[in-house]
């Protein structure tokens, strides 16, 4: 007997917190606001843990229908919640990392105005994110999908008096809406073909379709879902909002724009794996988008000097890896990387926040340096995260990235090649950040640079009598240490067989991802060329042995160390060298620094023409000069129209109609005339 889990409570709890703080928070003390925010996010985490404790007695997937929502004709969607292994992992990541960041934020935001507003938004985000992952149908998922976009909009624009922050929030929302356009169309197609949006029903409805044939409508659905994922998870061509989103407070960047919300696209694609598996063309598109994004964003990351911008492009790039995994149908590898990335990238942002906090709001790495000794806790946790993302063996990022690269190689060596090059670039820009921030001499202004007005993070750290660079308070350091622990050891749940592990992670998720492939086609898939190398892991013995896999592991480890070496050379040994290299590269360097001018191109190709068209042609042209010029001139317009009436109608009707129109018009004009005198 499966116990009733009351899953709906998990998202509702943070919503209660958000409401209390949002409505009454202005009158509360900071302590009270903190208490409320922690209580409700903590309660959600506690419930998630409780669900885990019930795990052995559960029959998965578990579903729960709370109440009807939309019912129209044969279509209906309920407020339904769904739990399987995939949900469980996401649930733990979101509530766990979410709680840690709630804790951290209290330290980070303590001096800020709008403290209650911040925590209200943060709780609101948790509500929507949990709705997204717990949904039992696409429509409830869409509630969360749009809702996290709203929370992101509010939090990016948290310092709304800054124009850049307000613009960044708006940009994020609108670009996400472009993705939602695709998502919605996918939903319409699903409704049209299956008459339902329920995950279980859709999955069983697509089961009869074999995985080897390309089904036109399934391909269309999958591609449209991917459009949605590109928006939310910042993939080419819709990634442009994420770097701008760094205008938000740093804890927001950590929670929403690194650990959780931006991975929603990966989660959604994984959740729809049954459709993707039957749409090989769509899978290829996913893989190509992921691979290109991973590489492209990483190259931009090399040249950024704002510490948060480096991490932002890094996030885009790492999300690319996850889509690469999805694209080769290695969904569990994608989710594995999603998890480790949540640890190390969340930590990187929080540590960066701690750095920014310590140097008084400065985000430019050229003005940092030598912070190693001054903020040791931050330094060591940042070190753990940097080593993890760079793929140094034994840390979490190493296992998950390696898993993806190996699976990508089995699908197509080009994915692997670009992936390994990207791994090298990743390691390089991360160690560049590490060396620039923590080693060498401090290059900032002498001890006075607590520039609140400086405008970047606008972190108002004045007021606590700072005596120069200082380590952050404990409330910020504890989450760092916990995440550092997870970044180091979090990968051991998924050690592959080639390294003597048994990849518990993949096995745990197997019921979710392996169950939808009909056994007949699964055999074919293993036997011959197939779009789904899904079967090539543990169960069926891979076509290439462990020794080959070890060689490839060796190559990616080498790439990681090469990046470390190069960064050490350029940013520690010979700090003047990068300048010279940049100069010698000239135009190429400039275009990378300027992010390949993508924002400028979008503005010139889409935004400006559209506004010009709307204003010049539609409004001034059509509305005012065409329509109004012919009709607005009331008398002429009226006689013209009544002329038509005259020709159309016969006999008495004509005069009747004309009489009413003109008579009434005269009367009303007279009444108004006298009324206004």
């Amino acid at each position, binding site marked *: 007997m499966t116990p009733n889990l009351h899953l709906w409570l998990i998202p509702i709890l943070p919503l209660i917190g958000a409401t209390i703080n949002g409505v009454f928070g202005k009158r509360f003390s900071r302590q009270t606001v903190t208490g409320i925010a922690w209580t409700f996010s903590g309660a959600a985490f506690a419930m998630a843990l409780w669900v885990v404790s019930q795990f052995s007695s559960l029959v998965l997937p578990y579903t729960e229908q709370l109440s009807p929502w*939309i019912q129209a004709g044969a*279509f209906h969607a309920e407020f339904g919640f769904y739990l399987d292994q995939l949900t469980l992992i996401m649930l733990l990541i979101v509530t766990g990392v979410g709680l840690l960041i709630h804790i951290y934020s209290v330290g980070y935001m303590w001096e800020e105005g709008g403290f209650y507003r911040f925590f209200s938004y943060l709780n609101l985000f948790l509500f929507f994110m949990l709705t997204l992952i717990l949904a039992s149908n696409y*429509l409830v998922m869409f509630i969360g999908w*749009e809702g996290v976009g709203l929370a992101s909009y509010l939090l990016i624009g948290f310092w709304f008096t800054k124009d850049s922050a307000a613009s960044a929030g708006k940009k994020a929302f*609108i670009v996400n809406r472009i993705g939602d356009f695709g998502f919605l169309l996918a939903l319409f197609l699903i409704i049209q073909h299956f008459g339902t949006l329920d995950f279980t029903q859709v999955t069983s409805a697509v089961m009869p379709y074999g995985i080897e044939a390309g089904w036109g409508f399934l391909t269309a659905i999958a591609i449209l879902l991917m459009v949605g994922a590109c928006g939310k998870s910042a993939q080419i061509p819709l990634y442009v909002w994420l770097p701008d989103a760094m205008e938000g407070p740093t804890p927001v960047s950590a929670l929403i724009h690194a650990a959780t919300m931006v991975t929603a696209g990966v989660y959604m694609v994984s959740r729809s794996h049954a459709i993707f598996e039957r749409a090989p063309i769509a899978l290829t598109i996913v893989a190509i988008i992921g691979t290109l994004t991973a590489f492209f964003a990483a190259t931009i990351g090399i040249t950024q000097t704002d510490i948060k911008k480096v991490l932002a492009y890094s996030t885009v790039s790492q999300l690319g890896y996850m889509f690469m995994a999805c694209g080769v149908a290695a969904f569990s590898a994608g989710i594995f990387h999603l998890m480790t990335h949540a640890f190390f990238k969340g930590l990187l942002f929080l540590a960066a926040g701690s750095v920014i906090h310590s140097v008084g709001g400065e985000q430019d790495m050229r003005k940092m340096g030598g912070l190693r000794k001054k903020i040791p806790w931050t330094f060591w946790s940042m070190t753990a995260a940097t080593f993890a993302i760079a793929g140094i063996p034994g840390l979490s990022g190493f296992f998950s990235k390696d898993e993806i690269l190996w699976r990508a190689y089995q699908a197509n060596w080009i994915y692997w090649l670009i992936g390994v090059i990207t791994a090298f670039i990743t390691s390089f820009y991360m160690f560049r950040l590490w060396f620039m921030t923590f080693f060498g001499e401090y290059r900032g202004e002498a001890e006075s640079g607590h520039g609140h007005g400086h405008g970047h993070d606008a972190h108002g750290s004045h007021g606590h009598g700072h005596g120069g660079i200082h380590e952050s308070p404990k409330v910020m350091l504890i989450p760092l240490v916990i995440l550092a622990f997870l970044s180091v050891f979090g990968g051991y749940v998924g050690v592959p067989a080639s390294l003597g592990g048994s990849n518990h992670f993949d096995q745990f998720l197997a019921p979710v991802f392996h169950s939808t492939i009909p056994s007949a086609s699964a055999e074919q898939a293993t036997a011959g060329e197939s779009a789904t190398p899904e079967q090539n892991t543990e169960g069926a013995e891979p076509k290439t042995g462990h020794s080959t896999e070890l060689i490839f592991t060796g190559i990616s480890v080498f790439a990681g160390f090469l990046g470390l070496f190069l960064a050490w050379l350029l940013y520690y040994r010979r700090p003047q060298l990068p300048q010279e290299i940049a100069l010698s590269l000239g135009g190429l360097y400039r275009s990378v620094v300027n992010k390949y001018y993508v924002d400028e191109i979008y503005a010139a190709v889409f935004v400006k023409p559209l*506004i010009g068209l709307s204003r010049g042609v539609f409004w001034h042209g*059509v*509305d005012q000069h065409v329509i109004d010029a012919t009709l607005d001139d009331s008398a002429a317009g009226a006689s013209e129209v009544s002329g038509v009436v005259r020709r159309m109608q016969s006999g008495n009707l004509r005069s009747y109609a004309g009489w009413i129109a003109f008579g009434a018009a005269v009367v009303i004009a007279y009444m108004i005339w006298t009324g206004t005198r």
Partner: protein
Amino acid sequence: MNGATLDTAILSLVTFIPLAGGLLLMLFPRRDRDIRVFALVVSLLDFIVSLHLPAHFDRARTGFQFQINCSWITHPNIHYHMGVDGISLWLVVLTTFLTPLCVLISWNSINDRVKEFFILLLVMETALIGVFVALDLFLFYFFWEATLIPMALLIGMFGHGRKVYAAVKFFMYTMIASVFMLAAILWLYAQTGTFDFVELQHAIQSGHVPHFSGAALWLFLGFFIAFAVKVPLFPFHTWLPDAHVEAPTAGSVLLAGVLLKMGTYGMLRFDLGLFPEQSRHNAGWVMVLALIGIIYGALVAMVQPNMKKLIAYSSISHLGFVVLGIFSFTQLGLDGAMFIMLAHGVSTGALFMLAGILYERRHTYEISEFGGLATPMPVYSSFFLFAVLASVGLPLLNGFVGEFLVLSGAFQAHMWYGIAACTGVIWSACYLLWMYQRVFFGKVTHDKNNALPDLDLRERTALIPAAAIALVMGVAPFLWLKSIDPAVHSSLASSLSSVAQIATRMVGR
């Protein structure tokens, strides 16, 4: 009064309580405060009485309920026939819901000729409700035209700027278009000797109207043009922005909230109800016009420098969704169209109230006059954001449900139309969020704005019901869909069967 008599009298009560209140107001001395209180009481009373309708509406039954049908004029044969079904039911309640809010929002902004203002407002309410409950075409036409006069006067007497121009433009446009409908109504009467909607529908379905097949297209168009101007459908829309900009706040709220829905309601009730075959034949180009309205309205809204004009153009876009849904001839499309009518009434009504609140403080709607208002007016900006989000169709708020259903229905009917219309979700975010940013974010650039007071109690009282309903409609739309869905279903089914019948007759010949 027992239940049965109340059921027959209820529609007359709901329709005429405001008019009676208006007549009583005429006798009032010019004590402005008393007049306002009285108007509020009357409109609230009417709202409470109107709640009888959904409370006692039998959702299992199709067809009209709470009917009253008695002879009014024997020659010509005009009946006092009223009734509601799942389609008109909520439009009546929407009207009675918005009117008290209009009274509240006009409390301080109308200081001159207060008595006239509230009399016009109440007369307006009666005319609007009458349009939705009338089942005799003559009666319907009477109420239809009756809405023009108070609205034109509200704009002309209490508006701002080029108010006379706007009022005359509004009047001429809609008046002239109505003439075509009148001609169609008179033709039908000449052939059948009845104005009764139910009888006419039956006569047309069973093929008892002489010369009908030759005239059907013209009849359809006659009705359609009157409705299309009212909606307004592209390219008949240019009266709307002018009317809105110059209208007083309450006028705008009723204009966008209810009056435009007369057009879409008319299409649903009369074009689809009486001429289903013609409606289906002409659905193609109507949907194209609706699509143009959605995209064009949104793009033009984006570049408006005037806040109220922007909201007005956004209405054109939203109403385009409604027309698209109606002419998709799908259950989802029609359900969604009905739902948008209600949702738009609430959320755009709220937006106009909010714009009016700002106008009271600064006497301008120019977006460039503002900026950074979130600092001096945090509560106001929260309400505004809420209304914006409802309007862009955020799930769990009212805008989403209708939009989703309409798009889904349109997509099933004509995939490419559905795709084109779906871009609307992008445009609405563009124009509303851009406007929101320019008005509320950034630093306060005009000194005058620093001292703007936040919402007072009266203003909150007017806004909270709208916000609450927007939320409830988004979370529990089935409360409304439960009565809309069967009504839409039966009207679709009857239009289908009548198309089939006509087709059989054609083959039989």
